[in-house]
């Protein structure tokens, strides 16, 4: 089981994170586990979500290359996410 509790998505949908969760559910990404974990700290969850979107989607470096790097580092950390 997870080493900290995963918050209930329906409950999180009543918080400031609702717009991000609705979007994640609609687009099936990012996996809502992001907010189920990070949601323990809603302000940080929101900030991280926005920062992640900025660092991933903006800039001039090729997006394919970024995706390979992301998966490379996920595998390195043995991360399921």
């Amino acid at each position, binding site marked *: *089981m*997870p*080493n*900290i509790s*995963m918050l209930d*998505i329906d409950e999180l949908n009543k918080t400031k994170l609702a717009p991000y969760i609705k*979007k*994640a*559910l609609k*687009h*099936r*990404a*990012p*996996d*809502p*586990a992001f907010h*189920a*974990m990070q949601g323990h700290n809603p302000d940080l969850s929101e900030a*991280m*979500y*926005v*920062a*992640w*979107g*900025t*660092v*991933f*989607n903006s*800039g*001039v*470096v*090729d*997006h*394919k*290359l*970024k*995706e*390979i*790097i*992301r*998966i*490379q*580092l*996920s*595998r*390195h*950390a*043995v*991360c*399921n*996410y």
Partner: protein
Amino acid sequence: MRSASAKQQGLTEEDIDEGINNYEASDRFTDAEKAALRYSEYMASDLDKIDEAFYDDLKKYYSSEEIVELGTYIGVNIGFHTFFGTLDFYPMFSPDGRLVSQEESKEIYGTTPISHTEGAMERALDLAPDSAAE
């Protein structure tokens, strides 16, 4: 998860595996792309190799602005995946897009991290990353 926009740009699972396991010898990647993949690999596991000479080589392919973009991206991912990796949780989406319990997710994905498996890219077909970040 796989980025839909990356997939739309032609990224394949074979590119990913090659880019991680065999990028130095591969003919799928340019010298600039290899430099970026090397940067990421060394940032994660071999920091001593990132020195002045390394950055001099990186500057052959990338501007300072791009190096900052790459370095930030790599650093965020190292921290993010390291933290999430320690939490030992499973995705809430099944490969076919259903919300599932942790128990069911564990049965689906087993002990192999989702990023190690093939076929997960299909789950991101409906994703538009730019709108997801709105």
